[in-house]
């Protein structure tokens, strides 16, 4: 098994293996609820809560979970926390809960969360699982807020509900529609690929120069 330091566990989910932008996991919520920054934040907060609690619990109880039923057990743990998050959002942030609708319940089947349980929490101690979950949660938040920011800015001319471009701005309605989600994700991935390519070319060039 590959060994990593705790700081690597933490950073990995945020950048090197960002769940949405690199691993392409959790795309359903990333496309569906990012038509405003507020929605992206509420979705991220709910997912963050679920992944942290699930990782800690799975990691703490990994000895007691028989191998044959581990996936069922993980899903049970995740579903419990999703239900809790759903009820708490409905009680304390009803406006956001109304906007997110069924997508809160669908966090259960977000493969990003199940993936972290199977790949990491089931094999590592509680502390490192928590670091890994926090990192992944932050990575998910960054991706969603980035998409939400773009889409809200262009689709309604505001950021977090505050008007940015003034009353004369004609909103690009397509950006808040589902098609806008695909467009935004495509452009973000394009930019990331471009910079990655440049970075590789640069290292290749310096390696050539030094030899």
């Amino acid at each position, binding site marked *: *098994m590959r060994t990593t330091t705790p700081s690597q566990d933490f950073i990995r989910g945020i950048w090197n293996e960002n769940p949405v932008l690199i691993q392409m996991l959790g795309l359903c919520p990333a496309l569906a609820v990012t038509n405003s920054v507020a929605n992206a934040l509420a979705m991220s907060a709910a997912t963050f809560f679920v992944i942290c609690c699930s990782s800690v619990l799975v990691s703490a109880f990994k000895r007691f*979970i028989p*191998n*044959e039923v581990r996936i069922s057990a993980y899903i*049970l*743990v995740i579903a419990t926390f999703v239900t*809790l998050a759903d009820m708490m959002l*409905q009680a304390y942030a*009803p406006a956001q809960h109304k906007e997110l609708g069924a997508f809160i319940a669908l966090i259960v089947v977000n493969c990003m969360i199940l993936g972290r349980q199977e790949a990491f929490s089931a094999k590592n101690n509680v502390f490192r699982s928590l670091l890994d979950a926090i990192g992944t949660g932050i990575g998910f938040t960054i991706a969603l807020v980035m998409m939400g920011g773009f889409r809200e800015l262009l689709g309604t001319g505001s950021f977090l509900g505050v008007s940015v471009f003034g009353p004369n701005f004609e909103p690009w309605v397509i950006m808040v529609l589902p098609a806008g989600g695909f467009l935004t994700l495509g452009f973000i991935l394009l930019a990331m690929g471009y910079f990655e390519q440049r970075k590789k070319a640069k290292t290749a060039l310096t390696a050539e120069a030094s030899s």
Partner: protein
Amino acid sequence: MSEEGMNKDNISVESETQEQPVKKTASTFRLVMTLAIAGTLAGLLIVMVNQHTKPIIDKYKAEQLKIAVYEVLPGIERYTTYYLVNDALSLTLPEGAKEAEYKRAYIGYDTSDEIRGVAISRGEPGFQDIVQVIFGFDPSNGKLTGMKILDSKETPGLGDKIFKDQVFVDQFFAGPETPLVGVKIGAGKGNPNEIDTITGATISSKVVIDIINHGIEEWMPVIDQGIPQEPKQ
């Protein structure tokens, strides 16, 4: 025991990727028990949180409804909730009945205890999902007094104009006669029951009009039978 023997082969393959290479095969009883205990604990946790959050959620919903009733029945001083029991209005529910199973009408009174209007909440499928509308009307002449969208998942930027387009919403507060008729902007003949639909959101606008028409169709005969007197306080 033969089952355990069979499972051993599977495990030996999987154990290569496991942290501890030697892992005992768990008995069926243990598998069932693990999930049963985990399920019980999960259920307990959910019940505990639900008991804490449910009053808050119910209070919020009741408040939202109260605000909406006053909004669609302008000029009322107070309102009373009536239930539809056996096709007639009733102040009380039958013994042991669940409140959520009965349709409700909210009857608004002015300062001199005269009936000013009736508010009905009704949902029908829209372009995406159920559109929940609350509307108020004057039962004496059938004129609409107001309309508010309680819940809708209509397309942002197009269908959501049914509650974001103030010009469209204001038409329902201008006292149109019922049944309403949806017309394209500019195509109306000036009849008092015409509502200009929203360009690009014809289906969503028609849904709102349909909900109101169907609601009045359903409730008018009930209200005509008479509204039972409130008990004197």
